[in-house]
């Protein structure tokens, strides 16, 4: 098993934290994991992305030329990554900020209104954790409890952020679960 996921969006949307929390959770589960943030000139342009590879054996390359999953938080990311995603791969998109839809018919698209859901919690900046909750519910890449432990560890010094992130995670998770049950 080797699953590569790209998280992409504007700088400040928390795309790097999303990837880091996922990688941390995979580490807790004893899986092999690599996390590669985008860096250099492209970072200064305002878009940010990172690639997380999770596997049960050694990971050769942390780079994903054809990712299994892509999480897009804004329009430019959709344009940039929709043609890289593997046939049969899954695109998670933040339906509040991404206006376009992928032109490809060979990929699965999952829409989550991350900003609306985060807003109901009174924490607009938690949209990323809402997305991560939905992502985990769909991919089962790691267990929900592992993500919760990861958040508790990563944000252990910021109690408020920790509580809010955990709430947002559950909201995203439940949103996808309910959609599945009602479908």
């Amino acid at each position, binding site marked *: 098993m080797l699953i590569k996921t790209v998280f992409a969006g504007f700088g400040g949307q928390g795309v790097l934290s999303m990837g*880091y929390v996922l*990688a*941390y959770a995979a*580490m807790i589960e004893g899986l092999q*994991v*690599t*996390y*590669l*943030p985008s*860096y*250099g*000139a492209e970072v200064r342009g305002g878009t940010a992305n990172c690639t997380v590879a999770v596997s049960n054996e*050694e*990971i*050769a*390359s*942390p*780079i994903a*030329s054809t990712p299994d999953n892509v999480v897009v938080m804004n329009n430019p990311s959709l344009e940039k990554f929709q043609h890289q995603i593997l046939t049969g791969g899954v695109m998670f998109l933040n339906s509040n900020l991404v206006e376009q839809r992928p032109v490809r018919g060979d990929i699965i698209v999952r829409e989550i209104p991350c900003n609306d859901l985060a807003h109901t919690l009174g924490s607009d900046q938690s949209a990323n954790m809402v997305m991560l909750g939905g992502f985990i519910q769909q991919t089962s890449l790691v267990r929900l409890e592992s993500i919760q432990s990861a958040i508790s560890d990563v944000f252990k010094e910021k109690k408020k952020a920790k509580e809010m992130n955990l709430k947002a995670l559950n909201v995203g998770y439940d949103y996808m679960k309910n959609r599945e049950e009602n479908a």
Partner: protein
Amino acid sequence: MKRDEKPSLMRGSHIVAEAAVRAGCRYYFGYPITPQNELPEYMSRRLPEVGGTFVQAESEIASINMVIGASMAGARVMTSSSSPGISLKQEGISYLGGLELPAVIVNMMRGGPGLGNIAPSQSDYFQATRGGGHGDYRTIVLAPASGQELCDLTYRAFDLADHYRNPVLILADGMMGQMMEPVRFPVLRDVQKLPKKPWTITGAKGRKSHFIRSLILDPGQMEEHNWKLIRKYEQITDQEVQYETFKTEDAKLVIVAFGTAARIAKAAVKRARAEGLPVGLLRPITLWPYPKKALRELSKHAKHFFVFELNAGQMVEDVQLALKGDADVFFYGRPGGVVPNPAEIARIISRQFFQKEIV
């Protein structure tokens, strides 16, 4: 070795910095350059916590000369940079060699030549293993291929440097520096309990003066100094070669690759093995001294060697020198900062078996 119970998830540059601190490094001098700025950034915060000193020097040349000073005084000291910055440090590295001073130098290689780019490359192999500076000297060169190895080799580099009184170079690349992997650090060493160095310059009050110099005008004495260094290099060559082999026992074709390229190559070997092709991997961990004996040993049953590097062909020369024409050597490289995927390398392996009728 006692290690932290819990793993940490950190980027390569931070891993190197923390491992250095754990090994007893208390002085860092450097000048910023992407893609390794996270290393000095980490040191600037971490060293004061353990009573160490961080200085952002005015240039690469200044920083390597500060390393010389701290090393003469007996400290465990490190500097780091990326390719063009390492070029600037070469004069100082030659001095470290001539003065027989321990120091750890980190090169997070980027694409070149010239200013190049900030993508991962392995194009400084010649510079690292042949010495980019002047004179008959050698640096021990360690090539990590994972987060854990970045940690363990950095930690060991300080012991090697002190033991042989010689500079040690960690040769990684932009990707290794940026990538995060779980790592379990060895516990912090007590600096007071490190082996004593009887040669340092710390003030001669109450003892005979120590004298460390590389200016030796008399050719006879200079020759003697050179032979002394060369005997030391022979001893290092005898005792410090490190490499990893993977599925080489029955291999008819052996890939030789280091660092990032070796990770890709290993995955390619697994793919080719799944196709039933008898292929293996030799991954040098020390680039100098080079695992020549291991290569010669493998050439008893493998007559085909495939060298894969993220450059236009540098380590391939060491493979050819080691094999002395006893086996076929094929090279494939991607220079300029491109990292190919394992499928590409696996295709080349299959093609080699087919074209060369390896059975």
